[in-house]
């Protein structure tokens, strides 16, 4: 399903990204150190395979809620809006840990995040869509803004997910291990405020998602039976194959909906699984579409690992902080997640969003 903006009387408004924030734990865990902790002698060169040099991990004091709340506070510190102006807070994390590794199923995480930032007037709920969670949240919030139902809402996530890597380190034996992907994970929080754009602004031009559910059994994660936290089992090669097969068609569909070609796109921010997979996947897309975006695909997985549902906004903040994004740049955020979820959010960066990081070093 796809939404273009504006779209007649039923959805006359355009949504834009007003501000974005993130929270990264201070502790760095290098791939060398993680692989040195495996119980079995694996002979796996994970850094060469994935391009991941290090990731940030909680030292036990940070968890899903605190990462989400800190990212939300960071986002608000860069925003024109006060917490009480938020009409909606949607929490989209896979992990819902508080009190270290206690997974809270009820009450929802969104209630606690809203309370911690003082969003006293916000309607709250959680949604869960694996690593496509935050982009799904943006899609849902933008829908309400486009119809004029609300003016602004926050999409937030906190992922304390590195514990899956700790568990995997105790079980991985070889390259064929289904827990290998767990060793790529890192912790992070991210938040974005989506609001109604001024008349004439481009904002989010197109957003579209589909679930290719015949591949829904390629990745499972659930609480471990006898290990602290959870475990994840992934057929990463098969996911990569499906992504390469399906992505060009869906990317093309998104571009056509916006009346654009791939050469009109300045930056593509894909889900961050592995630097090698991103470069190979984008290469296939570009070959199929007959051109390339103006810049290479954004890669942050080398520094932060795969931070699950937060990767796109961790990377977006990275690009804004580095001053690489400019007003008028067209950016495509590409979701690829267990399910198999494939989604695109195509938006134009504006002066105000660039300005939210204008004073950072």
């Amino acid at each position, binding site marked *: 399903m796809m939404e273009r903006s504006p779209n007649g009387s039923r*959805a006359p408004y355009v949504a834009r990204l007003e501000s974005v924030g993130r929270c990264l734990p201070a502790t760095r865990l290098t791939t060398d150190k993680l692989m040195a902790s495996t119980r079995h002698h694996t002979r796996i060169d994970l850094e060469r395979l994935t391009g991941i040099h290090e990731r940030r991990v909680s030292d036990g004091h940070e968890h899903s809620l605190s990462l989400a709340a800190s990212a939300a506070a960071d986002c608000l510190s860069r925003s024109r809006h006060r917490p009480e102006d938020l009409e909606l807070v949607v929490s989209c994390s896979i992990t819902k840990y508080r009190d270290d590794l206690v997974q809270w*199923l009820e009450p929802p995480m969104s209630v606690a995040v809203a309370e911690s930032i003082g969003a006293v007037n916000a309607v709250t709920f959680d949604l*869960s869509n694996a690593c496509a969670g935050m982009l799904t949240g943006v899609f849902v919030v933008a829908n309400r803004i486009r119809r004029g139902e609300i003016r602004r809402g926050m999409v937030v996530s906190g992922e304390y997910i590195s514990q899956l890597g700790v568990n995997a380190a105790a079980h991985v034996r070889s390259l064929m291990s289904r827990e290998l992907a767990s060793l790529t994970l890192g912790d992070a929080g991210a938040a974005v405020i989506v609001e109604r754009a001024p008349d004439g602004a481009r904002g989010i031009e197109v957003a579209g998602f589909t679930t290719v559910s015949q591949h829904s059994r390629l990745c499972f994660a659930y609480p471990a039976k006898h290990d602290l936290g959870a475990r994840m089992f992934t057929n990463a090669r098969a996911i990569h194959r499906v992504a390469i097969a399906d992505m060009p068609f869906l990317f093309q569909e998104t571009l056509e909906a916006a009346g654009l070609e791939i050469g009109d796109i300045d930056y593509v921010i894909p889900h961050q699984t592995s630097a090698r997979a991103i470069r190979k996947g984008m290469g296939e897309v570009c070959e199929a579409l007959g051109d390339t975006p103006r810049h290479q695909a954004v890669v942050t997985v080398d520094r932060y690992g795969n931070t699950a549902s937060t990767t796109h906004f961790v990377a977006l903040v990275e690009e804004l902080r580095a001053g690489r994004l400019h007003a008028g740049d067209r950016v495509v955020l590409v979701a690829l997640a267990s399910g198999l979820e494939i989604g695109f959010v195509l938006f134009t960066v504006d002066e105000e969003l660039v300005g939210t990081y204008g004073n950072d070093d």
Partner: protein
Amino acid sequence: MATTIEAVAVASSRWPTRRSARKLADDAIRTSVARAGVTTNDIDLLLNAGLYRERILGEPALAALIQTDVGANPEDPHDGRHGTFSFDVANGTCGPLTALQIADGFLRAGTVQHALIVASDADPGRGLAPRFPFAASGAAVVCRWDDDGGGLVGFRWETSPRDGDLLRARVAFERGRNVLRIEEDPAFGERAAAWAGKAAAALLADHGVGPDDVDLVIPSPLTAAFLDALPAHLGVDGDRLVTVPGADRVHTAGLLVALAAAHEQGRFGDARRVLLVSASAGIVAGAALITR
């Protein structure tokens, strides 16, 4: 012009320990889709609002597995097929009402033609949930946009974080294994009814309607204390509430089970103004109004 509820169906089991939340969802969807006179390939948006499923699966969204089971456009995308988008909504027993609002949004925008909401819970199995308190049950509704008829006209929500300790469900590591514990304070039902009453009052005020103008109230069954306290907080007679014997052990599917009962009793079709009311851990409380 409004989102209408096309069909609703319930799935339950006399063998609570033998059923899975996913299969209950599958059964409810197949029945609801057949009643709506459509096929699962007609479903553009599939939202799962259930919480307690096999192994307490965190990834992928259970909605994706359900989508495969029921055959809602599971195949790789190709020309001429619109596909199905599915994901999970987690808002406790308010999940179906939240999902209904999300579906209503995409139907209102004309983005989708048919949306399906399903909710189910069952013991996660494998010893994860000792004394799991909820009945194995599931329910589904099919919604579509109606250019001519009446339907959903609005939603309202209230949140009370200071009551957040009254119902908690947590998975924690105890004596060498992960265990789900669900704790409910005896005061939860009454407090939840009070917040549901506030949400409903605000909604009715939005639409210039008084409690006396409401023909039918469809509440999430939640607990007996909730249902006992609710009429007074809503300002309506108890006989206008739809109640389902034994449904107070039904968790996320509760609102949809009550909706199905209203259909079966012939009360839903006859009512001009219907109030849907739900409350859950948080405390989060919500209300929706259907007018014809």
